[in-house]
């Protein structure tokens, strides 16, 4: 099968040595098996995430995405721009939409890009990696590569916010999206229904308002436990980090005994495709996912 080429926008947290570097590690085997060719966007910059707004007003913030898309139009023309990070994807889509809606703002953007020898035409289509998997590859093709079904593992698909709102995956509901559960089924594991699937983890406010965010995280982890989950899986770096890393803080402050592994969907696919610890990025878990690691012998 011919490889499908995509301009790849990894985002800051997926870089080597950054908090979601194991997420990026898990892309390798998954993309190889599914004939996905990722071509990194040259000299990409931070998207601004959703916490840049205090200093970064509207146009500067949108420019961060405009530059990234302009680079793709110039260097990787014709390729969809894929990010694994919901915040990056959302920033791109927001910028694209805003420029489409307000032509004058697009003119302003190009005025700012002129000096960088770039121009933004609005041709790039931003995609999230899960969209590529669902829409371009399909569940059946994902399933066809499974050599190691994750039999008997109960997984809470934690969709969270930004792959789900405000844009979401086409055809999914905002209140109960099913794509992550379907992916969990695809790798042979069992998705557990629970009531915090799209609850916010606190996002960037986990830094500034930790106690308020811990309440969110606690609700999510507790509900996953209550419904029999052994692992939480998510498509979002910030969700993964918040929900995994702060369990120890919550345990310390609130006397809980949480130890719920939190992995990415791509790690499940990598594992089901026969990946080892490094290929799946499971070596990067702060809370080790023993129930998954046991498949690697």
């Amino acid at each position, binding site marked *: 099968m011919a490889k499908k080429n995509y301009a790849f926008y990894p985002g*800051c*947290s997926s*870089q*080597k*040595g*950054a*908090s*979601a*570097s*194991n997420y990026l590690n898990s892309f390798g085997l998954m993309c190889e098996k599914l004939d996905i060719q990722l071509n990194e966007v040259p*000299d*990409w*910059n*931070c998207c*601004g995430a*959703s*916490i*840049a*707004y*205090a*200093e*970064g*007003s*509207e*146009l*500067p913030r949108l*420019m*961060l995405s405009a*530059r990234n898309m302009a680079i793709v139009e110039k260097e990787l023309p014709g390729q969809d721009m894929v990010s694994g990070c919901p915040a990056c994807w959302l920033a791109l889509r927001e910028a694209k939409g805003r420029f489409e809606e307000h032509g004058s703002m697009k003119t*302003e*953007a190009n*005025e*700012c*890009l002129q*000096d*960088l020898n770039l121009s933004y035409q609005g041709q790039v289509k931003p995609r999230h990696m899960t969209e590529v998997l669902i829409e371009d590859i399909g569940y059946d093709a994902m399933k066809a590569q499974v050599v190691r079904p994750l039999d008997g593992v109960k997984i809470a698909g934690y969709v969270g*916010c*930004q792959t789900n*709102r*405000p844009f979401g995956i086409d055809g999914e509901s*905002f209140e109960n999206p099913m794509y992550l559960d379907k992916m969990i089924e695809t790798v042979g594991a069992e998705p557990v229904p629970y009531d915090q699937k*799209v*609850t*916010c983890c*606190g*996002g*960037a*406010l986990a*830094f*500034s*308002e930790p106690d*308020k*965010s811990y309440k969110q995280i606690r609700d999510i982890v507790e509900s996953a436990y209550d419904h029999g989950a052994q692992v939480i899986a998510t498509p979002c770096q910030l969700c993964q980090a918040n929900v995994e*890393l*702060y369990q*120890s*803080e919550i345990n310390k402050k609130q006397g809980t005994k949480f130890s719920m592994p939190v992995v990415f969907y791509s790690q499940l696919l990598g594992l089901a495709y026969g990946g080892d610890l490094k290929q799946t990025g499971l070596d*990067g*878990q*702060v809370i080790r996912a023993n129930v998954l690691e046991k498949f690697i012998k």
Partner: protein
Amino acid sequence: MSEALGQANSQAIARYKNNFLKEVEERVEDGQWVKMCMQCGVCAGSCPFGPHWEHSPQKIFMMIRAGKREEVLTSDSMWMCTSCYNCVVRCPRKLPITHIMHGLANYAHRLGLVAKGQPTRDIAVLFWKNIIKGGRLNELTFSLSMYFRDGFGQGVKNAMAMQGIGLALVKTKRLNPMEILGGHMCKDKSGIQRMLAKAAEIEDKRRGMA
């Protein structure tokens, strides 16, 4: 508050008198949507930080329409936005509530009306400074700057409190101590900085804030 910002603030008050809605429409991101709120309150019931803010988005919009300038711009509500977009997808009038909240936060910060030590404002400022420096986020220096934002002593305490998590991340190769030396950066970081400066200039001019 810097002198320039202080001036901007008093100018705005003088220019608009009671017509705060018009000020918001001109100067706040997506502010032109505020008049379209139909006061149903679905946003208020959809916010994950609902129990924590002073005013619901619904109330903020009504306050804007009622001309309650100071109460709005000093409210903590917009700083409680986690950008979960729940209000946006549920709003029957399709108001981009998240953006309006971000816009109000930006405007209040710019006018110097935000309470000193407002934690989300502080980290948001640090984040922006961090990313525009090299074009990409340096998680290590960002974290350290957050811990040390209230001075060195508090910073050590904060860092110590989080050292377990930090060490675990280092151990799993998800935090690189060497990033302190600069870490990942864009090649054209100066181009990015020029681009952002230009954008700020254009937008200020458009919004009558130059």
